[in-house]
């Protein structure tokens, strides 16, 4: 079973001993404490979006949060399911999410939100991180001090690599088309005038096709904890289909979230118009102003990035549960982690099968389903086109060489800062 084994108990609101669960009510942390930790975690996340390597850790942390979010969604959905013996009795695990996750060491790390830095202190009897052994003190200390950070980096690198596999070539096509198109336009190379436009359109079409797949695939990777799950095309496709209009809503969420971010990338270009005194600052002072701005810009970007991924995780969880219940996907198509959770929650294929329909009803219904699916796909594609359009508009308004096309922060690396080469960037 592959989960995220690390979580900092220092950030946990309550230190829980799994052996005492049946006797102890799970204590919820106070609201003030939760607020403080929320702000602290968010602050750390925003800071990490200000540097390329550190923002990889943001992906990893977010993936761990996605797994938690999906688990919670399944727990809610499983709570409505029939118990195996058909009764309505709900065990204590089903009424208390914290108790539920602590019931199994594989999910125990999700009692709280993932940690940014500190590793998890292994509780007595806890074997989730491997056999108990007497590791050298320094190693234990390092693991305790930086365990989560290392985990976030590792998972983040896996997530980024998967995302890059399907997006980097497209970004390269965009970059080429922009360069070629404007070079041909400048030099009046009429004979090759179509090259830039045609490659640009190709890139846009490929990106839209990829984005019909990518958010769900990223969620699958995050929730299962297995990078190979990203490439299970049939499973992801089934999930996207089952998600229906909710997948369209997710794409709309992406497009809407990217608009203010596009504006945010442009704003520094107008600082001088907004405040002419800024033109008198020296480079060091101007860098300071820019960094302050990008910190707050990063806050918005971080919120959007995490929000989108959590929304994708919930969408994934909902679609997966439905696919299993409706026998669209079999139990064998689940990853071990999912199988274990579903077994615990009793999410299984429904015993009630739909009554067979007459072909005079089934055919139109099926046809209607196809039409609806095509319509949804087209609508989703158009929304992703709006997302892409903002990339091009942003490129014109404030061209950032290479990264402007090669990195889309909401999709790839959540890096929300930019210093031009002239200022040492």
């Amino acid at each position, binding site marked *: 079973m592959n989960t995220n084994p690390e979580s900092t108990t220092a950030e946990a609101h309550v230190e829980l001993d799994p052996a005492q669960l049946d006797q102890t009510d799970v204590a919820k942390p106070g609201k003030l404490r939760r607020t403080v930790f929320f702000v602290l975690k968010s602050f750390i996340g925003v800071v990490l979006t200000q540097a390329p390597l550190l923002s990889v850790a943001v992906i990893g942390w977010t993936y761990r949060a996605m797994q938690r979010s999906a688990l919670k969604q399944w727990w809610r959905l499983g709570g409505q399911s029939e118990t195996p013996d058909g009764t309505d009795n709900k065990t204590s695990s089903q009424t208390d999410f914290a108790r539920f996750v602590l019931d199994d060491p594989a999910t125990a790390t999700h009692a709280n939100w993932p940690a940014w830095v500190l590793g998890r202190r292994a509780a007595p009897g806890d074997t989730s991180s491997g056999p108990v052994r007497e590791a050298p003190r320094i190693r234990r200390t390092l693991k305790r001090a930086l365990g989560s950070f290392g985990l976030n980096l590792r998972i983040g690198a896996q997530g980024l690599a998967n995302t890059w596999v399907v997006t980097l070539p497209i970004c390269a096509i965009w970059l080429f088309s*922009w*360069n070629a198109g*404007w*070079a041909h*336009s*400048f*030099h*009046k190379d*009429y*004979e090759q*005038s179509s090259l830039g436009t045609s490659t640009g359109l190709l890139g846009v079409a490929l990106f839209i096709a990829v984005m019909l797949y990518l958010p769900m695939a990223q969620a699958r990777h995050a929730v299962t904890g297995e990078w190979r799950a990203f490439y299970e095309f049939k499973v992801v496709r089934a999930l996207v289909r089952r998600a229906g209009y909710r997948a369209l809503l997710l794409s709309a969420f992406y497009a809407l979230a990217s608009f203010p971010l596009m504006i945010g990338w442009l704003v*520094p*270009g*107008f*600082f*001088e*118009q907004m405040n*002419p005194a800024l*033109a008198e600052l020296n*480079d060091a002072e*101007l860098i300071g102003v*820019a960094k302050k701005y990008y910190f707050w810009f990063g806050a918005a970007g971080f919120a959007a990035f995490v929000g989108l991924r959590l929304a994708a995780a919930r969408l994934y969880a909902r679609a997966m549960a439905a696919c299993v219940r409706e026998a669209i996907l079999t139990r064998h198509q689940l990853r071990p982690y999912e199988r274990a959770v579903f077994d615990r929650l009793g999410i299984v294929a429904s015993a009630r099968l739909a009554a067979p329909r007459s072909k005079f009803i089934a055919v139109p219904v099926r046809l209607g389903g196809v039409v609806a699916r095509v319509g949804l796909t087209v609508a989703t594609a158009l929304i992703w086109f709006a997302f892409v359009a903002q990339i091009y508009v942003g*490129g*014109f*308004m*404030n*061209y*950032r*060489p290479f990264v*402007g096309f090669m990195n889309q922060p909401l999709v790839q690396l959540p890096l929300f800062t*930019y210093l*031009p*080469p*002239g*200022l040492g960037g």
Partner: protein
Amino acid sequence: MRGVAGGLGSAVAASLGAGLGVGYSGIIFPAEQGRSGAGNAPAASSGKPDYRGPNVIIIRFGGGVRRRETIDPAHTFSPWFRHEFIPQGTFFPRMEIGPAAENTGHGQGTLNILTGIYDRYADVDKRLLGERFEARVPTLFEYLRKNFAVPEHQALIVNGEDRIDEEFYTFSNHHLFGAQFRSNVLSLFRFKMYLLRRKIAEGKLDGKELAQGNTELARMESLDYRVEQSGGRSNATEAFWEKWRGYYGESGLVNPRGDQLLTELAIRAMSDLRPRMMMINYNDCDYVHWGYMDHYTRAIAIMDDGLRRLVEATEADEEYRGNTIFCVVPDCGRDTNRLRAVPCQHHFNSRSSREIFAHFFGPGVPRGGVVDRTVEQLNVAATLGALAGVPTPHAEGSALEEAIA
């Protein structure tokens, strides 16, 4: 935000470069040669004196350049202009687009130069990002042709293919001036219209092609909606295009391209049409809007070379040698924004986008002068009027005394 629309408009217009791409066959009309381009339409009205002043060539050193890459000796990409031409005339390194100017766009800057006033311009068709502007007061060309017997084909704007709207800055809507005193235009757009007319007239198109040709020609001619009859053409310009066609063919793939085309058109115009006043609207440096600094600097170098060729062409022509005023002035500056990867990508009404320069050269202009005081772009029209002996009563800017010996 002020200036943004202008910058966007110019950038979008700059992206609409149209190739000819389609060849036409046609018959060759005998070119009507003559020192003044015989076969001309008569001057706008009779009884006016001949123009005996110097020829005037206005170089719009644009679209949009910073002082740094042009007149700054340490960073210039126009070395001939900076090191050889400037010392021969009177140079104003601190010309600005004054605060009264609402916008720092190309169309606005061009009309500032031609009219001598800052005005608020709006697209006549209210198109988003459109720059079909109408000047309220006369342009230099109208002043010249109203006061002197100068035929239309000797008052020329040489325009690029990326900014079709500027084809139609040839006259104002002032009630005492207007279309009858307009300048003519040399551009690829006009050549395409000429080719299409020829093709249709000679019956080289039929059926669907003919219908499409008529539609396209009507669309092109309708852009100059204020000209009902001749569509801004004369026997002289028709002969000019015929000669051009004979030399470069019809495909548009043989002639020079971009701003180099403008230089070629201007030099050929000097030979064939003998303009008394000509404005050349260089523009390719504006491609930096799309993010590539080398397009900007390369375009400046092309303008520098073009300027050199034009000056040499006037020196090689008896009627132009020693008898031609040059004015080199940008339409606008560009931003210097350190927070952008390309600091001069746009010209969104920043301080730097208002910082330009002007250089005057020719008879009546002192040599070697450098005027280190702030002057304004709207001073150009009155200064050229004073040098040429052409009254410019509606220009608000005054003549720059330092440029007049």
